């Protein structure tokens, strides 16, 4: 989305400040990377070189989870395989080869109320957006909805509340917050305040949120995921289909798209 100011892409060696276990299978990696901290926009991502050898060969994409001051960047990651397992072995002071910031992030619409809808790890990029919104003093007209399978997968609720945001949670098993899907939860809310929706999470959730938005004629931005080999727009591997039939690069034209332009399957 954010196509306005073209952001310079950099390849930097960041320093690990902290690599912290925050929930079962989930870690928060805090790095010192001034260039990235200054350039980063909510919804953009980074390509991390995991490990020193040729296996895994490719970089791994991770959203920018938070930026602190002008030097520190957070990444929130879930361990799902080879690369993320290696990430957990990073220790303070070690260097990490990063390319970024990449892609087009969310374009926050200051004038309207904001509704952030996160599913599972989808909170990773949305937290940065929430941060930015509150820093711009618009926290009051912003609410965050987080859905997860169960309470242990419900992330960042406390952090969001401490920055003064109104947070509502839903879990599929009801172990915390309302029981059920996030979409059930937001339906009546969207009807009332007619917010702009910013969403990230599993595809089925994004699809449901988008349908809802369209049904109520609300503007909606979604962050999509694809396997990415380059993250730079060079390999044409990460394409997704648009409503107009175009195949566009998630890493370049996205990862954030206008829900109305996506060809939902």
């Amino acid at each position, binding site marked *: 989305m954010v196509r306005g100011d073209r952001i*310079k*892409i*950099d*390849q930097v060696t960041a320093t690990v400040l902290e690599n912290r276990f925050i929930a079962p299978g989930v870690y928060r990696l805090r790095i010192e990377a001034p260039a990235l901290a200054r350039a980063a926009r909510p919804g953009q991502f980074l390509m991390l*070189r995991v490990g020193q050898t*040729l*296996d*895994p*060969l*490719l*970089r791994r994409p991770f959203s920018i989870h938070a930026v602190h001051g002008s030097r520190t960047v957070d990444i929130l990651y879930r361990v799902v395989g080879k690369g993320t397992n290696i990430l957990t072995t990073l220790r303070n002071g070690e260097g990490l*080869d990063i*390319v970024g910031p990449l892609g087009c992030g969310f374009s926050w619409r200051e004038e309207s109320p904001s509704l952030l809808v996160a599913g599972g790890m989808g909170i990773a990029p949305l937290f940065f957006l929430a941060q930015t919104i509150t820093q711009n003093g618009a926290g009051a007209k912003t609410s965050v909805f987080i859905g997860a399978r169960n309470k242990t997968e419900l992330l960042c609720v406390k952090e969001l509340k401490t920055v003064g945001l109104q947070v509502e949670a839903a879990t599929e098993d009801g172990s915390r917050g309302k029981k059920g899907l996030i979409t059930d939860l937001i339906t009546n809310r969207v009807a009332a305040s007619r917010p702009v929706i910013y969403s990230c999470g599993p595809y089925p959730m994004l699809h449901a949120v988008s349908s809802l938005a369209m049904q109520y004629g609300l503007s909606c931005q979604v962050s999509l995921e*694809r*396997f*990415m*080999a*380059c993250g*730079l*727009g*060079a*390999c*044409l*591997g*990460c*394409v*997704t289909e648009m409503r107009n039939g175009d*195949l566009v690069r998630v890493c*370049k034209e996205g990862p954030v798209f206008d829900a109305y332009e996506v060809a939902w399957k």
Partner: protein
Amino acid sequence: MKKTRPDLSVQIGLLRLQNPVLTASGTFGYGEEYADLVDLNRLGGIIVKGLSLKPRPGNMPPRTVETPCGLLNAIGLQNVGVENFIADKLPFLCDLSVPVIVNVLGQDIKEYQRLAERLNNVEGIAALEVNISCPNVKKGGVVFGTDHKAAARVTKAVRAATRLPIIIKLSPNVTDIVSIARAVEEAGADAVSLINTLTGMAINVETRRPKLGNVLGGLSGPAIKPVALRMVWQVAGAVKIPVIGCGGIMTAADALEFLIAGASAVQVGTANFVNPRATMEIISGIEEYLARHNLKDVKSLVGSLIL
């Protein structure tokens, strides 16, 4: 007494490169994608994504999957088409000081010929690289590059249609790559480049479906380097035209293996994804190696394998 810097320049037919390090087609976009990360003017040359006459949408995703030390891709040769390339992509490349090599592909001989004609007098194109690893629709999808007769026919057609130097890019999925290299030399190629990707496949055992939308894909990366190096050595020993080596080159040492095996230049592909600075580091590494071994130029290294 400071040594004079070694001479990295190489000659590919009429084409002079300031150093032997090119970017491999399809792995460097149209150059601009790497503008922030690479000093493009330090490259030996840029080979752009394969072009067809009309724009191509490419294959349905997923298009890429990682394999051990490798990458499988089935992009399906998506590209903007020759006219959009000339209008939208070439101007940026023309502003650079390095040779721009255009990779072309056709569904039949006619398409190759038309592409060559169209690009013949376009300002700012230094050479054509002809990708013959494409299915020949006329021949029911048999790949041009796997049949030395078809390969020769494509070469002749392109040769007749352009004054530009032509580099034929060979497919490794063949029994005898030497016979194909000889056939295209015979047919008028100014150089050959090899290898293109090895055809491979991957399956998701949980869903029991292919990991690629296209089922089959092309394997690239360090995994294929030993095969690429072997073929480059075999071809370099059999043809008189220059050979451009490609396949799994990640470091200067990898590039040096290809030069020593007989390649006059190299292409860096998948490495651009893993380490955008790869080409820059390879150029510096080759220069450092030459200095350390007291070699005055890279030419004296080409084909210097001791048996």
